[in-house]
């Protein structure tokens, strides 16, 4: 039944929704911090996907024991630990860059940044042209 499928696949649905939300935030939001948040959301959705597929039905935690035969897969957890470190480092670099941008430009909004950037190059151009005259 379709409803059963949705329930058993709830982890995939969650991952997709989170990923779409995150990507939307990255693309649609102009504030740099919000972009970073979206990026983190996107990455988290992938982590969710990985970890949830590690669960085996009727399996226990992956700690050796005499009472159980079936264990969940520990490998995705290990992989995602690494991926989380990567994600945190990315977030750290991104935030550091945002701080520097704020210091240099005075704004963390993309559209304002674009104006400041272009005007900077336009200023340089105008300066050159006026020098020539």
């Amino acid at each position, binding site marked *: 039944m379709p409803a059963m499928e949705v329930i058993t696949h709830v982890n995939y649905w969650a991952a997709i929704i989170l990923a779409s939300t995150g*990507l939307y935030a*990255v693309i649609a939001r102009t504030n*740099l911090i919000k*972009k970073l948040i979206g*990026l983190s959301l*996107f*990455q988290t959705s*992938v982590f969710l*996907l*990985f970890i949830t*597929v590690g669960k085996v039905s009727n399996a226990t935690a992956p700690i050796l024991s005499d009472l159980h035969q079936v264990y969940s897969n520990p490998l*995705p957890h290990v*992989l995602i630990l*690494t*991926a989380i470190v*990567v994600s945190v*480092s*990315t977030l750290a*670099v*991104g935030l550091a*860059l*945002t701080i*520097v*941008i704020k210091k*240099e*430009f005075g704004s963390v909004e993309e559209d304002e*940044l674009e104006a400041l*950037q272009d005007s*900077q*190059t336009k200023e340089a151009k105008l300066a*050159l042209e006026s*020098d*020539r005259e």
Partner: protein
Amino acid sequence: MITNHLSILLVVLPLLAAPVCVLLKHHTIAWAFSTLISWSLFAISILLLIHVLEFGSISYHLGGWAPPFGIEYRLDTLNAFLLLIVTAITAIITPYALKSVAAEISAKRHNLFYAVYLLSITGFLGIISTGDVFNIYVFMEISSLASYVLISLGSSRDATVSAFRYLIIGTIGATFLLIGIGLLYMMTGTLNITDLSERILLSPDMRPIFAAFAFITVGIFIKLALFPLHIWLPNAYTYAPSIISAYLAAIATKVAAYLLLRFVFTLFGKDFAFNEIPLMEILLSLSLLAIIIGSSVAAFQNDLKRLFAYSSIGQIGYLCVGISFASVTGLTGAIVHMFNHAVMKGGIFLAIGYLVYSTGSSDLRTLNGIGRKMPYTTAALVIGGLGLIGIPGTSGFVSKWYLVQAALEADLWPVAIIILLGSLLALIYVGRVIEAAYFQPVPEEDLFQPNAQWQMIVPIWLLISASIYFGIHTDITIPIAENAAQLLVGLEP
């Protein structure tokens, strides 16, 4: 004893050297240390290449754990050649850094610069050497993060914004790669490339495999800056410090192209990638667009670095055209173009860096008449440009020869013509540089300060002479490229 572990040493050495660099406070000592490391890496990769050419692939088991459970570092002709390219470029560029970085970054942060630089080298070398897909993701993120930081250190304040935008796009790309790897793992239960290549076709449901293929290739296209996912590249190359522009232009996209080859041919296999999925049509159309648009937009740029950044977008198109043919000739052309373009573009960006060092500007309008003030460096720039056009005698001609030959062998006439038209477009933008440098009068505000720096001149001429040498003597690069191509396609070399 050590020689058994050379493959891992290539990655461990710069990884350990990076924190040591942080501790070396004095900028010259940090530079000297990095140079020493880069030269040792070059020596190691030569040894590895010789070993692979004589004895076949090297398989190194990390920690002694056998694959497919342990992580395997697998070096065949393709990796070994690419390792050589990356370490050679690094070895030539790092001595250049002493003066170039000094001009653009404040002295007390040099040790941090070199630390991050070594980390990015670690990342690239790791991507190339490893035989485990998750390892690829990790190293890719190491190298990307280091690149973002390095780009943001440029002297213009636009550098930070360019780095940020690159961070956003690059992380999305890497996450796509991660999704693809996850899907593959779900269907096969393994992360080892060789093991995956055997198990993929036995997977019970092929739909996740198709999805994985899509995610992985799009993620790689972002890193490769293949049109239309190239938007991050021009700004990143323009505002980065000059040496980082040279470094990234010569290396970063080649490593991404290597990933494309590895995933498409070794992991998924040529039959799956080209027969089940219309990869050839997709890749071919995108790369032809890259060639035409990249080279055309380059002609309109006033900033030298941005001009050659767009030129790089076009050249990446050539790489992908060769890959899309999936024939031995096409792949040979693509692989040898990796080498040739790394040498040419590295030399060009180093020359531009020297121009920036001497005049403070990379804008063509301020560099009017520079050919008379700095004749040798401008000559180096022009020779590199001739290579991009594909004049016989330069290494660019060798790549074009093989690419057009591959197009003709595949009966794809329009493609052959477009490849040659790309050369004519390159003629336009190189011609612009020549005319600005030699024919325009020097502007009144002459910014030129003569200051011959041997550490900068020698690397420029090493790379430019290499671009000529390997354009005439192809007996080193072509057999290796052909060997690698044959292995990829599945023939016995």
